[in-house]
């Protein structure tokens, strides 16, 4: 029974660390976004709270925490309160199967323990797809329960957009699965070790660059970020599905959006850019420093994730919002055929030139 106790304690510590890191990253992403947008528009961004505005997210968080939670008249109170949780929880628990570092096993009090992945289940990517889909319920229920026209329209738009692009995400991933032969993110990452040309974005027999582009554009659309932020298009829908939300519930939708951004960036890094693998083997700690491999590996993983997060902000600063009919046409008539064609070509190429 001691082993079970040790295992629970280890798991709890791991989960606490992962959730802490994710929530801290979310906090400072909000600042980073405002800073990056500011610099791109030749402004300074937030400067008042703390040196260079570094404490701005703390001030924002505290303010939202102490704000009144307004439940609009005529709202469905139960669903209105549940919706933010339904959006936030799936965004957080997706991190359970992300390998943040090498697949090491250490023994702590006789218990086998993998420090860099909470749970290496063999259906990892399916698990993430399944749970991120639940997040869409939070959005549409929040929109419907608010009893506001803007919220309802925003929620409907969002649901239609999320499911349309979910399909493309699902199709884009199949190409990688064909090459990796596993649904476990740990195994997919391990299949990309060595030089950067082993990363699935460049890998023979058929580089998954098309799948990568489809995946990333769909991921931007799924997280409701610009240029696909029609659900919350502030110039026409006020704030979309969270028009009526205030205080901590509003903050939860915000947290969910940013946590989802981090999650899709992690998946993009793990599936297409080799996860924690360095571009060249000598850029990891090796030889006499091999016991520090985990350090350079987690740094490489973080670098890739932050690159994607920066890309999100960059897109926001650069591109104007799409029209809704353009958005749906682009998803169904451009992305879907590309993703399907990628599967066909990858399958034929993988049959003719099998990997190792």
């Amino acid at each position, binding site marked *: 029974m001691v082993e079970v106790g040790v295992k629970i304690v280890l798991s709890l510590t791991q989960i606490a660390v992962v959730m802490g890191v994710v929530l801290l990253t979310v906090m400072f992403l909000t600042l980073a976004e405002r800073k990056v947008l500011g610099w791109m528009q030749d402004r300074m961004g937030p400067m008042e709270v703390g040196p260079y505005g570094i404490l701005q997210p703390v001030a924002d968080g505290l303010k939202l*925490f102490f704000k009144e939670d307004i439940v609009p008249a005529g709202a469905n109170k139960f669903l209105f309160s549940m919706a933010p949780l339904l959006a936030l929880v799936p965004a957080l628990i997706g991190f359970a199967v992300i390998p943040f570092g090498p697949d090491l096993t250490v023994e702590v009090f006789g218990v086998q323990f993998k420090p860099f992945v909470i749970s290496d289940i063999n259906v990892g990517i399916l698990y993430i797809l399944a749970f991120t889909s639940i997040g869409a319920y939070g959005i549409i229920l929040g929109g419907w329960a608010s009893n506001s026209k803007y919220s309802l329209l925003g929620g409907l738009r969002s649901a239609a957009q999320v499911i349309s692009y979910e399909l493309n995400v699902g*199709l884009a991933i199949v190409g990688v699965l064909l090459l990796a032969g596993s649904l476990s993110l740990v195994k997919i990452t391990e299949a990309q070790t060595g030089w950067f040309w082993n990363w699935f974005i460049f890998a023979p027999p058929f580089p998954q660059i098309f799948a990568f582009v489809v995946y990333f554009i769909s991921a931007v659309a799924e997280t409701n970020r610009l240029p696909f932020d029609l659900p919350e298009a502030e110039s026409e829908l006020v704030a979309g599905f969270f028009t009526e939300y205030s205080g901590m519930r509003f903050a939860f939708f915000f947290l969910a959006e940013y946590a989802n951004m981090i999650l899709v960036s992690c998946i993009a890094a793990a599936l297409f850019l080799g996860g924690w693998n360095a571009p060249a083997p000598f850029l990891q700690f090796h030889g006499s420093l091999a016991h520090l491999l985990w350090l350079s590996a987690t740094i490489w993983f973080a670098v890739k994730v932050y690159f994607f997060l920066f890309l999100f902000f960059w897109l926001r600063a650069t591109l104007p919002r799409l029209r809704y009919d353009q958005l749906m046409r682009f998803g169904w008539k451009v992305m879907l055929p590309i993703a399907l064609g990628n599967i066909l070509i990858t*399958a034929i190429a993988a049959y003719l030139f099998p990997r190792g």
Partner: protein
Amino acid sequence: MTGSEPLLDYLGRYFSIVLFIGIALAFGVVTLLISYLVQPKYPEAEKLSPYECGSEPFSDARMPFPVRYYIFAMLFVIFDIEVIFLYPWAVVFDKIGLVGLVEMLVFIGLFLMAYVYAWKKGALEWD
């Protein structure tokens, strides 16, 4: 529990996930609860009325909406199920050889037929 027993190991992996779900849920509930306890509560009719650019809200907010949304939802369900069928095939692709490839080409052919039909019928048009 030694870790070498496959079933226990298998269940152990899902145990961490269940634990994570529980903690994420508890984090959300507890945060909302504490915030509920410390926040001011001064509800009034004006404040509680749904936002409508300052005018009095007219008619019910839960109004009818275009049937388009349902069509796209149904297309999604159909196509997404087909996509899920591709996953197990992709995972064992290198073990099933030519038969697997040809079978899946037929399957994707059927997928494409449904897709082209939906396109020609105008189901993919938003306007």
